[in-house]
């Protein structure tokens, strides 16, 4: 009898489990790792949605393009502005339907498909103990003594690397190639991705590294280390905005919409700064953690819309490659 009750219990439990709708969200690896925002977001959303939010980490756009319309994804989070053109052209995404008035980005945003959830300024981060006077512009870096070295990421394999060459191209236009030639002696090396470069920087291999203006917040908040700082450039900084989008072929449209709305909510936004170490996209400054409010900010945000960025991309990468190959 007991066994029967137990069995009946099992059946009901699994039936209940089967009825819980699943929202599948593709996200980058850093996002879903136990130190990233993923676990907190999953708990907070599941508390309100009566659903099972499942993050599937990995390459976002390549995977989605491989899968095409049969993708299991309902929502994709972690795209960035330099891929939106390709993502849009795939026709795999639906309008997000959210009111964008809540956004607190340094740039204006009216895209109806890609919804910002966090952002930061692409920056050169330096170690104050080894570089007391940081450069205040790319030209200042170019003119600095030769032992002022920086570690970059490759624009052909890294999002931040690509953002940097677009930043230089946006500021210098036709002079970008010449600027890269002058910067080349200061480039110690170029890495495949951000982690290698940042690891080398914290090991002291170079006094400066390509990262984000919010990177120092980690060192201050988690390590009590105030010697890592972002060099603020007079010409303005490239705004790196991360985005979410709803997949048009989703079989959970209501849940997907609810998640898109949740992205802009304070519950989601409040988790971003100290898990993703970036600025929240829709949270007023006075709600930011103190350490983020205290970070120095550039006077100007530089942003290229996707058409401009796509038009400049190949040329910008080629100028970078040629200058650094000599």
């Amino acid at each position: 009898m007991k066994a029967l009750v137990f069995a009946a219990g099992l059946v009901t439990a699994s039936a209940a489990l089967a009825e819980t709708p699943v929202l599948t969200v593709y996200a980058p690896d850093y996002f879903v790792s136990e130190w990233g925002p993923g676990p907190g977001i999953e708990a907070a959303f599941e508390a309100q949605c009566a659903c099972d939010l499942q993050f599937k980490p990995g390459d976002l756009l390549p995977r989605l393009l491989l899968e095409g319309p049969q993708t299991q994804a309902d929502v994709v989070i972690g795209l960035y502005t330099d891929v939106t053109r390709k993502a849009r052209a795939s026709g795999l995404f639906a309008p997000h339907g959210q009111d964008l008035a809540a956004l607190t980005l340094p740039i204006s945003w009216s895209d109806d498909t890609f919804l910002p959830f966090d952002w930061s300024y692409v920056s050169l981060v330096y170690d104050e103990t080894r570089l007391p006077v940081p450069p205040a512009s790319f030209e200042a870096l170019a003119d600095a003594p030769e032992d002022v070295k920086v570690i970059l990421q490759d624009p052909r394999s890294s999002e931040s690397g690509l953002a940097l060459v677009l930043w230089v191209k946006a500021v210098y236009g036709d002079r970008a190639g010449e600027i890269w030639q002058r910067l080349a002696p200061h480039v110690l090396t170029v890495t495949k991705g951000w982690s290698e470069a940042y690891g080398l920087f914290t090991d002291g291999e170079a006094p400066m590294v390509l990262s984000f203006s919010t990177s120092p917040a980690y060192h201050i908040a988690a390590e009590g280390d105030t010697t890592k700082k972002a060099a603020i450039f007079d010409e303005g900084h490239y705004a790196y905005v991360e985005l979410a989008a709803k997949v048009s072929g989703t079989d959970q449209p209501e849940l997907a919409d609810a998640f898109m709305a949740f992205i802009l909510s304070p519950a989601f936004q409040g988790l971003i700064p100290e898990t993703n170490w970036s600025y929240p996209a829709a949270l007023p400054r006075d709600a930011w953690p103190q350490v983020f409010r205290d970070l120095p900010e550039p006077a100007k945000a530089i942003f290229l819309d996707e058409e401009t960025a796509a038009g400049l991309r190949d040329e910008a990468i080629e100028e970078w490659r040629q200058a650094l190959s000599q």
Partner: protein
Amino acid sequence: MAASPVAIIAALVVIGLILGPVAALLGLGGDLPAPGPAEWLALRFTLLQAALSASLSVALAIPTARALARRRFAGRRLLITLLGAPFILPTIVAILGLLAVFGQNGALNAALAPLGWRLNIYGLHGVVLAHVFFNLPLATRMILQGWLAIPGERLRLAAGMDLSPAMVMRTLEVPMLARVVPGALAVIFVICLSSFAVALTLGGGPRATTLELAIYQALRFDFDVARAITVALMQLGLAMAAGAVSLAFARGAGFGAGLDRTVPRWDAASPWLRAQDAACIAAAALFLLAPLAMIAAKGAGTLAAQDPTLWRAAAHSLIVATVSTALTLAWALALANRAGEWVALAGIALSPLVLGMGLFLILRPFVSPLAVALPVTALANALAALPFAVRILRPEAQTVREDYARLAQALNLSPAVWLRRVLLPRLRRPLGFAAGLTAALSMGDLGVIALFADPDRATLPLYVYRLMGAYRMDEAAGAALFLLLLCLGLFWLLDRGGRTDADA
């Protein structure tokens, strides 16, 4: 000996695993574009660095292996185990370890600073240095294996005839090297072909663009599948051509059967040769162990302070390593012949990114790729370890066949008895080494799991990468040290297991 059905099936599985993913991706991509100037440049650099890296690794491995073969000293076994470590390190950890020694802020520059010297590691020489760091130990072990396979009776005979070291070299060692070196060169050349993160970082920038970078860019950034396949086929073609050339050159008969006795090397007793060997061993040990020591020093502080999830990641890695080791050994035994060695090279010649994405496409209609992330990783790791395992097993497997096939035929041994009573017992030493290498390699390799990963099914290398991605460089160093210790432990266990029985 005619190819057995088992060998043919094993070879077909390899070919299927290479061509299947390529075909699956081709199905998406349309017409293959011809390589552009950027690809030809990448091809040139890839060839150059791989040829230099392989030649130098093997050239340096010969005196090192000879010294290790001729000498017995306390800690020799430990040293041989430790020398296996560079090869199995996750790339990112190895890069940080190497630069902790040779970088701007490295130990070497700290030592040179008082003399006013400064070493700049970034450039082609840096790429080659890094690849020699990875592959010198592998080459040393492969060649050492050859030295140990010279029957003691031959050395005894040489001593009895009072041959000089030069004569021993000419009559015994050179023929052995002629058999072993081409294969070692080929396998190291091919593994260097697919270098990307290491080549780029140590090469100092886009001068050091390899074909693998072009594949990565085309697949992950431009989603230009056809271009990725073009470049992947260029890489595959290079590898298979290198394999064919090496097999054409690898000649020379074995030494005949012996009784597996170790005998003193009477020929190498002179003080001059002793000093020479000691210098070789010391130099190789210093070069290979210094970066490992830096990794250990960096990670020691946080080794104990790890999150419990580390254990789960470690358990996943152990399972993957066990499965791929079993798979590789069975596969490699079947392929331990001339054609098999050539086919097995394809296992590391295909870009792991193409392999991963292709498998993803193939599996997707049947099963969620995330659900099979670990089995697929084990399979991909087994495939990647196959060329090494075949290279290690083949010379001795062939010798056993040559020496005992007639006897087996005369006794009419069934294949099962032949395997159990003749082949496997005589192959214990290379089997142990191959198993240790495969397990450690599988343990340390990030592999295709990065494409498939489920948040709950991370392997240890992925765990290290995730820590780094979350700014936790110190904890990552501790986890990396743990990974290194685990790899070494596994390598030691299997490698020793093979040798204990063989020596008994």
